[in-house]
Structures are given as structure tokens and as C-alpha cells.
């Protein structure tokens, strides 16, 4: 039996890795992937606590998150595709129309 603390530390590490990826990367696709990693961190937490409390609700939530993540990736990729068509780039530091 793996103690709860390990799951929590693991998911925290995933969250930080994902956050680092979001902040540091310029490529929009990699940023999208990093966001997926952050979502995974949350999913891990849900599953771990569901096991800990013997409550299935957390596992159901995990299924929801996976479904929503798939939809979100679809929308995100569609946005990036149309962005690429318009601006011919998906480098985030090139997309600075709202810059001061």
C-alpha cells in the first residue's frame, strides 16, 4: 500500500512541472501539452483521495476530467490551427497584439 503522501508529492511535482512548462515554453503546442500535465496532476489527486476515503466520486471526477481534457485539446488545437493560418506562426512571443 503506497502512502497517500507519495501521491500528493507526485501530483505536486507534476503540477510544478506543468506550470514550468506553461511559463517557459514559447511553442503553443508544448504549452498545451504542459496544461495537460497540470490536469493530470489534479486527476492523480482525485484518484488518490478517492482510494483514501473509499469514495468513488473522486474516480468519477477523474473520468470527467479525462473527457474534458480531450475536448479542450481539440478546441485548443483548432484555435492554434486557425492562428497558424492567419499569422503563420504559433510562437507565443510573436503573438503580442495586446502588448503595451
Amino acid at each position: 500500500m503506497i502512502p497517500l503522501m507519495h501521491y500528493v508529492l507526485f501530483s505536486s511535482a507534476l503540477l510544478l512541472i506543468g506550470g514550468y512548462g506553461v511559463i517557459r515554453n514559447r511553442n503553443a503546442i508544448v504549452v498545451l501539452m504542459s496544461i495537460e500535465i497540470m490536469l493530470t496532476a489534479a486527476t492523480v489527486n482525485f484518484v488518490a483521495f478517492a482510494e483514501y476515503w473509499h469514495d468513488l466520486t473522486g474516480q468519477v471526477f477523474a473520468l470527467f476530467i479525462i473527457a474534458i481534457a480531450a475536448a479542450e485539446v481539440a478546441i485548443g488545437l483548432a484555435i492554434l490551427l486557425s492562428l497558424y493560418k492567419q499569422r503563420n506562426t504559433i510562437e507565443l512571443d510573436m503573438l503580442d497584439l495586446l502588448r503595451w
Partner: protein
Amino acid sequence: MLEQAWLIPVLPIAAFLLIMVCGRFEPLRSRFVASGGWLALIGVGASSVLSLLVAWEVFTGGHGPYEKTWTWFEGATFAFEGGIYLDGLSALLLVVVSIVSFLVVMFSMGYMADEGERRIRYYAEICLFVGVMHGLVIANSFLLLFIFWELVGLCSYLLIGFWYEKPSAASAAKKAFLVTRVGDVFLLFGLVILFNTFGTLRYSELFADPAVLAEHATELKWATLCLFGGAIGKSAQFPLHFWLPDAMEGPSTVSALIHAATMVKAGVFLVARAYPLIVHSPDTALYIAITGGFTAFIAASMALVMYDIKRVLAYSTISQLGYMFLALGAGAWAFAHAGGDAYAEAHGYTAGMFHLLNHAFFKALLFLGAGAIIHAVHTQDMREMGGLRKAMPLTSTTMGLAVLSIAGVPFFSGFWSKDEILATVRHNGEVEPIFALLWMMALATAAMTAFYMTRLWMMTFTGPPNEKAHEAPAVMTVPLCILGALAVISGFTIFLGEGFASYVHYGHHTLQNDWALLDHILTASGTHLSIAAALGGIALASLLYYRSPTQAERPERARFILDNQPTAWLHHFLTERLYISRFFDWFGLRCWDVGAAACNRFDLVVIDGAVNGIANGAIRSGERLRRLHTGFTGHYASYSLGGLGALVILLRVVLPLTGWSP
């Protein structure tokens, strides 16, 4: 008839509305240009007839004041009651205003004939002027009087600035309005004091109980001084006298109306109306007398050297108004000094009002005559006139009557009233030395009056005949003749019925036999002195300024005045109008502008500084803060993550350490 007295002001105001509304209506416009004068004449004439009937009823009725009130609106503690109040004083003013205004409107139909479409405005404003003056006279409370008082000021502003495209007329109108406003503020203060003290401004309630008035002597002193402040502004007394000569920029008919019937007489009327209050304050009475006597003296001295015919008349008005105030003040002082004696009578009151009546006729005549002259020769400078006697026989004769009257030649109207005033002041002088001094000044003023009026007549009418000038049309000469007759006979009202004093008097009145009165007047040494002063002034002026018909050059007999150093200096001093106007200009430019500059600086530095500072702060902080918007997604993400971290640290670490629990 007394119940219908409210129609007196309403009729001219209705004529004003009719002329103003229909005159602006394009299809009727051309017709109203011609008929506006007739409408005005009918409106003013109807109210004049009504005034005379009402005055007749008041004078012959013999009963106390008649009052009729209507409640306009009611508050929790105060009901505003408009209404009419008729006694000998208001009846006298009704007579003066109605006769003079009717004749002036009639004269205007000839005088203003060349003014075209502007006559609509002129007639409308004249009607309003007459209407509000009637309203002022018959008002039943100081509050209603104040409303009409302000309207009179407005009308004078409009009419003095009638030729508003002339800068001098526009500025004269503004000057008249602003200077009289200074007095109006005092009047308002006085009314506030009265209302705070007695809780009412209605004459009948205020004057009802002399005992209550006597208890509040201090309040009454300040209130009456403030009321007199209003009269100083309106009646152009020192030190607010300098607007009146500038007000000559309006048409001569307007000057006649302002000087003889409306506007300046309002100040005298106010003081006479407030008499029951003033007699409880000898200080105010003395101040009124001193102001009047001093103003009469300096205004007459300035009139000596003026060359503008209307300015001479303007200073003469100021001087004569000073006489009236001197009389009113002296009468009130004597009455207060009598200390509640049941048989005390304010002779000065009667004398002042008598002079008001006489002055109205001869001054209206003088101004209308001056108007006829200006109409004929198109100049106001007396040095360019002369020799008009042949060309304008009616004008010269009627003006001659007015000159004799104002100079105080025996049996003309000015003689009777001026003599009454001098006698009253001299009588006071036996008790109070100041009045003796004022009496001497008044006597000197009488001599100067005779001098400058004769000078005016001599410079205008004598000399080689002026061929170009011609007599005015009948619509102008008829009013002159009527006023000429009135200027001679109005003085005899002193013997009318049981004497003028039995109609207009304050306090106890003893009936006097006419013959005894005549005997008293003609044998008094004061009368002889005033006759000597008048004749001396006339003789000196005739000697200096008479020009025979063959004498083309203007006589240089007055040359010695300018040749000698002290008299030349005095002449210059008077020509500069005692430097009073200069002083006020200097005062305005130097002292007032310093204050204005300080205010301007305060505005620029403090107010604008605060506003601009806040705006600049916002702009600068915006400049700095907008650099957070890098447009790079990573930065936004790190802000939100950093914010999350900060929240976690705050809720989980900092707040538990401080002992706070959600």
C-alpha cells in the same frame, strides 16, 4: 375706486406684454411699429386716470391708510401677502408718476419717431417701467416693494442701454445697474433685520405699535441705516452718485422718466415710507440729513462747470434729491428729538415730499426740453448751442419757467418747497449745530442752483439766432406746455384745500390758515435770504453768460476763473468731478485687481494644481503599470501562478501565525 387700485400697475404691464408679444409676431410687426406708441399711451394713460381718481379719493376721504391684501402663498410660519396700501404718501407718488409718465410717453411719440422698429422695444420697456414704479408705490409690504424695486432697476438698465450698440451706453447701463445693486444689497440686509426682529414686513403690522418699535431701537438703527443704503444707491446720493450722470446715455425721454418720476424717486419714497421706523433712530435721521445736505452741495458745485446739457441736469437732480433727503432727515430728527410729544410734527417730511412733487414737474420739463433741443441741434454740448430762442419759442419759454422754478424765484413752485426745507433745517439748527452748518450749505446750494440753471438757459437760448434749428412737433410741445404750467402752479398746492401738509404729513398736524402761512413765509428772514441767494445766482450767471443777438463770439467774461491760479485749480477739481469717479476707477484697478490677482493665483496654483496633479499621477502610474502587459503568455501565466502561491502562503502560513481563523 380704491378696490380697483391694483389695476394701476397692471394696466401698463399688460400694455408691455401686448406690445412685446405682438411686436415680435412677424405679421403684426409692421403695424405695431406705428401703433406701439398709441398702445403705450393708452395703457399708461388709463392707469394715470385711475391713479388720479384713486389719489383724489385718498386725499378727500380723510380716513387712515387703506389696505387690501391677497395671500399669494403660505408657508408653515409665514404667509406672503401681496396687496395694496394707500395713504397720502402713495397717493402723492401716484399723482407724480402718472402725470409725468403720461406726458413723457406722449413726448416720446415725437422724440423717438426716427428709431424705426426699435420703437417696439422702447414702448414696451417704458410701459413696464411705469407699471413697476406704480407697483412699488402702492405695495403693501417691504418685500413687495423690494420686488418692484429690483424690477425698476432692471428697466432702468434696459432703457439706459437702449442704444446698446454704443459702447458708452452699454457701459453706462451696466454701471447704473451695478452701482444701484450695491445699495440693493444693503436694502435686503435691512429687510432681513426687520423681519428677524418683528417677524413681518407688512407696513400695517410694522407701523402699528410705536411702543414695540421703541423697544428695539438698536435693531431699528441698523435696519434703517441699511434701508437708507438702498435709497443712496437708487437715488444717487454720495458716495454712490456717479452712476446718474453716466445714465445720460439713454434717450432724453428716459432720463426725464428716471429723474422725475421713476427710479430715483423710489429712494426718496423708501425713506418716506420707512419714516415710522426712522423716527425711532435719531442717528439714522442725522446721517440721512448729512448725506443729503453734503450731496446737494457737491452735486450743485459740479453742475457749475459741466458743458453737457444733460449732465448739468443730472447733477441738478442729484442735488435736488439731496435736498429731499436733507428735509426728510431733518424732519425725522426733529420728531425723534421731540421725544413722543403728542403734538410733534415732522415738518421736514412734508417739505421733502412737497419738493418731490415740484421737482418732478420742473425736472421732467427740463429733460424733455433738453430732449427737444438735442432733437433740433443734434448735440449735447452747450458750447455748440446758442441762439435758439427765436427758433424754439415754446421750448425756450417753458424751460425758462422751469429754470425760474428750480432756482427758487418767488411764487414759482421750487420757491415754496425749497423754502420749507430751508426753514425746517434752520429750525433744527437752533438745537443741533450740525444742522446750522447744513443750513448754510443748503443756502449755498440754492445760490449755485440758480447760477447753473441760468447758465444753462443763457448758453442755450441767447445769442445770434440759429437759423437751422426749428421747433419740435406738437406732440412734443404740448407736454412741454402742460409741464410748464404745472411747474408754475404745483407750488400753490401748499395752499390747496387745508394746505398740502394736511394731505401728506407725519405725526400730528395743526391746521393752518392760508394767509397766516403766506404771511409767515414772506416775512421770515430765512425766506429773504433764500430769495437773495436765488436772485444773486441768477444775476451773476446772466452777467457772465448772457449773449445779445448781435454778439457772434461767446463772451469771455468768465475767463478770469481760469486765469487765476486758485480758481483755475478749483475749476479743474470740479470738472474732474471731485476725482470721485477717478478714485473709484483707481480703487477698482489697484485694490480690487490685487484681490482678483490673488484669487486667480489661488485658482491656478491650488485648484488647478490639485486637478492637474491627480491627472498627472494617474497618467504616470498608468505609464508604469502598463509595462506589466508584455503580451507574452508566459508572463500572464506566471502572474496567476504567483498569485496562487501568494494566496496559499497567506491563507496557510501568515494568517494561522497571526491567530486568525476563517
